[in-house]
């Protein structure tokens, strides 16, 4: 298993640039996730690596070997598509075995390998069935098994879980992660779903409109988003964003004239150093706001507008004059709609974005 790198990869379709000077590394034996909205360039990137598209510029290396000019079959990568297709007339066993059959592998080895991956994906009991007799979730596992049965240098997975319903998706994701960990395979995994990305990725590459926006661990992406786009894209319920004005002494005026908040000293210093203007956007995640019935020195008051129970937690929407704020609270509360409530933002968890550049400053 190996290291994949893309250098200045560029792919245009007519006048539309799908991928623009993309640079990234896929680490050996790790899961690298390519996360971005629809049409961000994810699928194009994977197709270039697989050799299904020819980029106009840039280099693709696997283990230091430039593979741009190799035909797809010689690149030794496996591709799992979003819209998987199985051979309907073959059994599950034959479907999984098909990539091995064309490679002149002994019958015993084929059987051993098919059984090994089928076991890992919990589809051993389906091996004799035809695809029409298994469920959608099982079909996708067969498609994944068919890719995993070989030992390619890199696995390219293009939204492999998108067409599955919520429960099966969750289960398959867990199994996929376990399997990668057991086999030490190198995964390059494209998805528009931030939950998929956070949960399966060792590293996440966020792209939008063909450009890399941020590269980091799930923790970094969530806690230190590079800009407003990432902050808004990752996390559910989404981060709250409020307009504010920064003063040199570290006091921020949110609203304006709604809330005055004193920033911690480290954040104040970063703001002084890097802000391009005094106008800022502050971001705070719903779980970093606490509610209380009592007023405190640092609390503000608001109206409870909507309560959305999720079972183990709930989302409370507060209204404060013209602004609306989402709060996530654990457990069950005694709140009622339209009642007044006090809330406090954890100052250390406030993100400061430059209004002009939209970059995160502190």
């Amino acid at each position, binding site marked *: 298993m190996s290291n994949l790198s893309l250098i200045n990869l560029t792919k245009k379709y007519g006048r539309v640039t799908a991928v623009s000077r993309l640079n990234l590394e896929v680490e050996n034996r790790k899961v690298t996730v390519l996360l971005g909205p629809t049409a961000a360039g994810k699928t194009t990137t994977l197709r270039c690596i697989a050799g299904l598209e020819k980029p106009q510029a840039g280099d693709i290396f696997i283990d230091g070997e430039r593979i741009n000019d190799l035909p797809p079959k010689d690149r030794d990568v496996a591709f799992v598509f979003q819209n998987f297709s199985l051979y309907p007339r073959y059994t599950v066993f034959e479907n999984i075995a098909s990539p091995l059959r064309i490679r002149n592998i002994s019958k015993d080895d084929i059987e051993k390998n098919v059984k090994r991956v089928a076991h890992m994906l919990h589809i051993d009991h389906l091996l004799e069935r035809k695809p029409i007799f298994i469920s959608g979730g099982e079909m996708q596992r067969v498609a994944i098994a068919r890719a995993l049965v070989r030992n390619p240098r890199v696995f390219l997975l293009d939204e492999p879980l998108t067409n599955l319903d919520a429960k099966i998706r969750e289960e398959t*994701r867990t199994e996929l992660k376990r399997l990668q960990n057991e086999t030490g395979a190198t995964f390059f995994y494209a998805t528009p779903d931030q939950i998929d990305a956070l949960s399966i990725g060792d590293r996440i590459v966020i792209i939008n409109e063909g450009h890399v926006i941020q590269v980091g661990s799930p*923790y970094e992406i969530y806690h230190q988003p590079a800009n407003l786009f990432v902050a808004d894209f990752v996390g559910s319920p989404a981060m709250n964003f409020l307009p504010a004005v920064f003063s040199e002494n570290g006091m921020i005026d949110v609203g304006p004239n709604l809330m005055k908040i004193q920033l911690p000293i480290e954040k104040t210093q970063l703001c002084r150093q890097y802000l391009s203007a005094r106008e800022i956007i502050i971001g705070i995640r719903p779980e970093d706001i606490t509610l209380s019935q009592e007023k405190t020195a640092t609390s503000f008051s608001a109206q409870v507008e*909507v309560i959305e129970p*999720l079972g183990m937690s709930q989302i409370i929407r507060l209204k404060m004059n013209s602004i609306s704020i989402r709060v996530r609270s654990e457990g069950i509360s005694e709140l009622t709609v339209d009642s007044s409530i006090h809330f406090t933002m954890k100052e250390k968890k406030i993100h400061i974005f430059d209004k002009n550049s939209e970059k995160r400053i502190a």
Partner: protein
Amino acid sequence: MSSVTVDRLYKKYGKVEAVKEVSFVVEEGEFTVLLGPSGCGKTTTLRCIAGLEIPNGGTIKFDDEDVTNLSPAARNIAFVFQLYALYPHLSVYDNIAFPLRAEKLAKEEVKKQTEEVLKLLQIEDVQNMKPRKLTSGQKQRVALGRAIVRRPRVFLLDEPLSNIDAKLREMTRAELKRLQKTIGATTLYVTHDQVEAMTMADKIVVMNFGDIQQIGTPYEVYHYPANLFVARFIGSPGMNFISGKIITELGKVLIELPGQLKAGLSVKQQDALSQSNQSRDVVLGVRPEDVKVFPQEETLYPAEVYVFEPLGVQNIVTLKIADTLIKATLPGDVFLQIGEKVSVSFREIRIFDKQSEKLIA
């Protein structure tokens, strides 16, 4: 607005029973959600109430009036398929006035009623704008405004949020819930998405295979699921299930689990199970947030980390306990490694009968 009473509603297509004697009530002004997987009969039920399907049995009443055999037009319902379907070339005002003009109401009356709705939904200041200039929240208000201006007795919504992206859906959900209460609309909402049901409903009717599985508040269906189907369907990540047997030890009723583990029960649960046969097969259910994970300790269940999934706000760990996989949610700042040995205890548990799959304690 009216209440809706569905009594032993029955509908079949050929030999297939789509809805099997289903009964429930939507109180006036209440937000009721019909929840279930595809093919469970929820949409058929809704279509019978709308008058788009004629049931083979049972009755449907709006208040005390039997509407079972009325035509859709005579029922005075608003059936909303998609919240964003507005006429793009008409202003907000004209979009809302449209149904009134179609009914050939007097000009004065159209003006009066349209203005009332604009005011109620707080969209007076955008009344001259075209839909494409509006925010998503405003569009939704206009779509609802157009539906309520005719003063329907009931709102029927069939998966109205299924075609919009996740971020927008989240916002729309809260807006819709707020608006429903503002206008006091009797609402019956069909969805397969348990999050939508939990977050919006006053009352949830859970359906499967044409039958009602449970009727309850979001709190009730989440914390006291009537059977394994409901327990499995509601909540994400889903409830964990472990097979076990009822035993009595030193006068205490316990659940014996695989790997010689034993689960204790609350006094109330022990009472409920005290008459049960020894060795009765049961299923123990525990929600991921009720699985507590500790550093290794002898008195608790031993477990091994099978998969660890960080989700930002919280982390999900899949644990192997005596060959059973279960999930636990952890705070966002607790990290575990695959293969790590830990100990586990359960907070709240639920006990289901293995055969009937019903909640017994």
